[in-house]
């Protein structure tokens, strides 16, 4: 009885302004989807990066595992813990911070005040 159809109110406005389906998609729907997708997807990417050590459970080599192996190779000297893990942290920071900055910049550029 009901046909499920994706319509939102801006889409109807576009239709009533004689936009074709293509134009509605590119000018109205996708820009809004894009805007809504940026912050969550970028955040997920950063979280994913930081969660990669979990992959070591599966035997994938990554930086935290490598740090620990390096410390073991140096006979587990406790004074090495801070510099070695600190170095790993720096690498994470160097990788994730620009992503976070870029996210903020993009969010500003596509600012939609709803």
């Amino acid at each position, binding site marked *: 009885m009901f046909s499920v159809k994706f319509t939102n109110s801006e889409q109807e*406005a576009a239709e*009533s302004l004689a936009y074709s389906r293509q134009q509605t998609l590119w000018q109205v729907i996708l820009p809004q989807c894009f805007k809504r997708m940026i912050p969550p997807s970028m955040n997920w990417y950063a979280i994913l990066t930081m969660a990669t050590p979990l992959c070591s459970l599966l035997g994938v080599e990554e930086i935290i595992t490598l740090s620990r192996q390096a410390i073991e190779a140096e006979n587990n000297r406790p004074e090495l813990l801070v510099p070695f893990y600190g170095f790993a942290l720096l690498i994470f920071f160097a990788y994730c911070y620009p992503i976070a900055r870029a996210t903020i910049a993009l969010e500003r550029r596509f600012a939609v005040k709803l």
Partner: protein
Amino acid sequence: MSNQDWTDDQPIVSIKDVHKSFGDLEVLKGISMDVMKGECICIIGPSGSGKSTLIRCINALNDIQSGSIKVEGLEVNDKDLNKLELRKKVGMVFQQYNLFPHKTALENIMMAPIKVLRQNASEVEKKARELVKKVRLEGKENAYPGELSGGQQQRVAIARSLAMNPDIMLFDEVTAALDPETVKEVLVTIKDLAEEGMTCMLVTHEMGFAKEIADHIYFTDRGVIVEHGPPATFFERAEDPRTREFLSQIL
């Protein structure tokens, strides 16, 4: 079928025995009305009586099951209808404004003429700025919809429709979502338009306004037009008990 032979001594919008159902629910049960060029008509009636549905059929946002709607001679109930041609003639303003939130006020107004009509951008901008002035929003050109009040957004929406140079404007309860203070600024804009000779069809709950600007008033209830007439006779001498009951509640 073709609109070649339409002349403006014939109705610009001619609706004949229109039926429309959503599934099993019949919402329009044989609606007929004629609107002449330059006329302003108001449709009033209780909630759910099919006012929005009727007005949305005119620019083919809803299709109809039977009957005929002709806009400048162009048959809307035709599976080969060129909807884009129809919608270039008919502007529509919604209750919830429906502005594009990722564009500024000026961009909202300019987009369709540039993208749809492929007009020259600098000319479109010039015209858009005139429209901003016409709806009294100077200074708000670069504001995003979220930064504007409801009344201001609604006036941007009106300007956005006007930028397409339509011959007919449809308004569906465009002041229903507004604060009482901002209702007036939007009504003034519509009144200006009607006085300039734009053909307007509006659904409204503002009886005072309808009385003031309408050439003709239609009262709908449960999918039929119960009663219609020019405001003077309509408000003074409504005959049908349903109309009288409705008016007594609202006035």
